[in-house]
């Protein structure tokens, strides 16, 4: 029960911030994919950079556990590209589609119906993929610092610097 309430409260906070940051809208998502307005990228990378520092700090202190998804190169790449194609068409992602409904964008309902259908389609196809494409080039649960064989704070620092440079470039270009 505590977990369910925790999930709801966390979702409300996140949904509130997504709406305030204006990242829920089709126009904003497509504007980023058309390289016209990088609002969603600014939001996402600000979130990622803050989270990256926080997660690694708490993990070093032994307060939390990491929860990595396995790196299965083919599944990640092919699945990721298919996702991108669908994303360009619908203009919402799974999490933001619900938030878009929350601010009145009812075309997201059709997208959500499609997403549910897509999940059912994948469940039908999964038995044919589970022993081939999904496990090709399976490297297990690895991180970039492990792959490079360097301290994680070095990678975090590089990411933060790259992120800030990207933000400065966006502002300079008025994106």
């Amino acid at each position, binding site marked *: 029960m505590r977990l369910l309430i925790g999930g709801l409260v966390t979702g409300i906070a996140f949904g509130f911030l997504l709406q305030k940051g204006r990242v829920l809208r089709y126009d904003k998502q497509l504007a980023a994919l058309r390289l016209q307005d990088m609002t969603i990228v*600014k939001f996402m990378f600000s979130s990622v950079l803050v989270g990256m520092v926080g997660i690694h700090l708490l993990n070093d202190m032994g307060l939390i556990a990491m929860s990595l998804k396995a790196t299965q190169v083919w599944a990640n790449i092919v699945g990721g590209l298919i996702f991108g194609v669908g994303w360009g068409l619908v203009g919402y992602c799974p999490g933001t589609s619900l938030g878009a409904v929350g601010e009145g964008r009812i075309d997201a309902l059709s997208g959500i119906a499609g997403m549910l259908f897509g999940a059912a389609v994948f469940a039908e196809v999964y038995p044919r993929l589970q022993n081939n494409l999904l496990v090709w080039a399976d490297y297990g649960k690895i991180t970039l610092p492990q792959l490079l064989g360097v301290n994680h704070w070095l990678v975090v620092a590089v990411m933060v610097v790259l992120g800030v440079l990207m933000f400065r470039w966006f502002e300079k270009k008025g994106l």
Partner: protein
Amino acid sequence: MKQINDPGSWNPYLAGALSGLVAVASVLFTGRYFGASTSFVRSAGMLERLILPERVAANIYFSKYLQPGGSVFDWQWMFVVGILIGALLAATTSGSFRVQAIPDMWQQRFGRRSGLKRVLTAFAGGTILMFGARMADGCPSGHGLSGVMQLAVSGLLALVCFFAGGLLVARLLYGRGGQQ
């Protein structure tokens, strides 16, 4: 940054950074990382179970996420519902709630009477997107936010591919050159 006539909007860097803190707090207090697409599998399984219960019970993919007779409600499902409520709260308290069936950018490109086309495209896009998300084992929440925060190789790979696919389709739909 363009913020003309947009009541209640916050700087995206600020809103993003705060949501990063929310993500960290979630991991600290409940041990849960953000994610969304698994809830669509659970919901789809629950809905399909209403009409084809044997088929869902026999499916190994649904069996990974749905226990027979078990509830679909878990941390992530509540999180996803919470996103809707949070967005509704933010929109209605700032006067930016607006019922809209056809997005402005879509309307400029495809015309004011392109509603059916929009509904069908959104459905098809949603289907393709979720198929890809489940193949990649995550969406921009699970891979893009949670994965990249942890510097997971899977998250970084998937995020690059999400954008690559999206950039391609946006160019096909709207043409090159941005401003039209």
